[in-house]
């Protein structure tokens, strides 16, 4: 059942998920996206440029987080606007990797345009990694 605008309330949680990420995941994302920046797979390079180690692509984190919204709305094509600021990197140590936690809450409703703004709280190791992470979805 697709969600209906009239049944939603601001502040309502619509989904949450924990997503694991390890080095093989980053290599896979590098290949799929074409972003081969070595800070996402080469420990030596990452530390030489002042990072704590290999970090996840911000775009991987952003892309993984919105899956909660796509699955909730039932149609990934209903996401008409999606934005974030990258607040903090997500270090991905080998071999343990990291866990990203996503909580999706209704941030605003607009009956005129038939849209709901879903605000995503995205954290790793207790710290917020994406800021102002918002997805606007069109509901029928």
């Amino acid at each position, binding site marked *: 059942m697709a969600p209906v605008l009239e049944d939603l309330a601001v502040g309502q949680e619509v989904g949450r998920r924990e997503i694991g990420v390890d080095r093989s995941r980053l290599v896979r994302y590098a290949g799929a996206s074409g972003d081969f920046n070595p800070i996402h797979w080469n420990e030596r390079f990452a530390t030489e440029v002042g990072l704590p180690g290999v970090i996840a692509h911000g775009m991987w984190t952003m892309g993984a987080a919105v*899956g909660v919204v796509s699955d909730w709305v039932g149609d990934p094509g209903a996401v008409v606007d999606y934005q*974030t600021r990258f607040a903090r990197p997500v270090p991905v140590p080998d071999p343990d990797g990291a866990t990203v936690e996503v909580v999706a809450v209704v941030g605003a409703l607009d009956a005129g345009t038939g849209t709901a703004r879903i605000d995503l709280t995205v954290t790793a190791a207790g710290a917020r990694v994406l800021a102002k992470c918002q*997805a606007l979805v069109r509901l029928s």
Partner: protein
Amino acid sequence: MAVNPEFAGREYPPNEAYEVGREKLREFAEAVGATHPAHTDVDAARALGYPDVIAPPTFAVVVAQRAEAQLIEDPAAGIDFSRVVHADERFIHHRPIHAGDRLVTVLHVDAVTERAGLSMVTTRAVIHAEDGEPVATVTSTLAVRGEDA
């Protein structure tokens, strides 16, 4: 070297079309953990009214970054990619990207600003189908650390 402020306001001509393939969308969906069947199963996508499998919401970055390369790989722009951090990203979708699309992008450099040893470069990639139909706009800000930062 700081990013060249003269690039602000620049608009590039439409680039060569990006042809969206089913397997590329499936590969990207798998990489971001997008498990909705509309990304991988043609019948599931058609049941939602789309002509073919559709892209996850952030796939447009792959299309946009081809256009952004015109700026980033231009030595005159002064962007040292080893000193770049991604600051923000936004996707506006007029319709989902689907397999079979041939997408042309016009890149705009909206702003180049200096702030506390950082150069902030904001680009806007306007993506449309070959027939001119608007598809998506991808806005991205990169922060480039100066030599002393």
